[in-house]
């Protein structure tokens, strides 16, 4: 497993967005971080897993993170979900839980299927990702430039946890850097 993840993180070796997101999650007192791994999230997942005041929860499918977030909030803890754009499609029905119960929700989505995408199988869901979130009532905030990330993460956390809104931060593939096809 480690060999694969090292290969996949090659394109995102320094991932400068990771500490920015991590700091925002800490600032917002997020205590449960769930994820389905993505190369673009690899550094952030490592940081969250190493943080003693965070529980990191690996999921088998992204919709689990919606339910987990709801349970965490019932119990007084804030939660965030890390996923790739392809995982958004797995969440559709479960997102109704957030609307039905008005549960704060913050997800950070790494985009695939756009800038320099080499894999045509990623394009369909990548293209549908913002609309899929929005039709289920989730506000999307797309980040194309790294300098926008810190203020937008802070804003997203406020919108989510103070205004009870479901918020998705979409990290564009052009900002992340396209995944390298390593042979």
């Amino acid at each position, binding site marked *: 497993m480690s060999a694969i993840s090292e290969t996949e993180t090659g394109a995102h070796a320094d991932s400068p967005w990771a500490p920015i997101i991590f700091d925002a999650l800490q600032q917002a007192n997020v*205590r*449960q971080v769930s994820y389905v791994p993505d190369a673009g999230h690899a550094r952030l997942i490592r940081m969250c897993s190493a943080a003693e005041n965070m*529980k990191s*929860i*690996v*999921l*088998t*499918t992204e*919709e*689990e*993170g*919606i*339910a*987990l*977030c*709801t*349970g*965490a*909030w*019932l*119990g*007084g*803890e804030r*939660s965030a979900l890390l996923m790739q754009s392809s995982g958004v499609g797995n969440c559709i*029905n*479960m997102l*109704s*839980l957030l609307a*039905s*119960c*008005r*549960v*704060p929700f913050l997800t950070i989505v790494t985009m695939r299927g756009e800038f320099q995408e080499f894999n045509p199988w990623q394009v369909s869901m990548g293209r549908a990702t913002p609309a899929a979130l929005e039709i289920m009532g989730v506000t999307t905030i797309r980040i194309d430039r790294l300098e926008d990330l810190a203020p937008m993460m802070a804003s997203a956390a406020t919108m989510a946890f*103070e205004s*009870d809104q479901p918020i998705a931060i979409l990290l564009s593939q052009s900002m992340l850097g396209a995944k390298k096809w390593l042979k």
Partner: protein
Amino acid sequence: MAEVNRLHRRQAVADLLADRKDMLIVTGLGSPTYDVFAAGDHPGNFYLWGAMGGAALTGLGLALAQPERPVTVVTGDGEQLMGIGGLATIGVQRPNNLSIVVLDNGHYGETGGQMSHAGAGINLAEMARVCGFTECFEVTDEAGIARAREAIGTIGEGPRLIVIRIVHEETPRALPARDGVWLKARMREHLGFGPN
């Protein structure tokens, strides 16, 4: 197989929850929601009316946030099957205060009584065991209910999954509040938190 499904769901759930103390309960949509409500409404109950497949993971988030309290998920075989991967997720976290109770009649009771995978012989207790749950057993009689009641009321070694084999039958509807915002706020208030 049919002969082990002797317990009646309403009585089984009422007996299971008779001594709940400070337990928190999440219910899976459909009959388990009605059964738990019929056993006695409580601010520590969170009833799902949708989000099929999400009961166990809602319970996990709650159990991780409230590690001192026993958390019990009461759901059906079909609901748990839809969220079957969640057993692996829970098995990795190993919360010692989370119990999943599956009311297993082997059928999708809300939708016309079609046979479920559990009804076809897929064993949910065994699936939980291989996912790292530390206590997994099936209940087919009143003595088993008593064992389950004692287990779910305590902090254990790790997560539990208990299958209660019940009769496939119609029961009178007992419908709790459907307003999810209210149910959420009620649970949070019960635990000492504001609505947001």
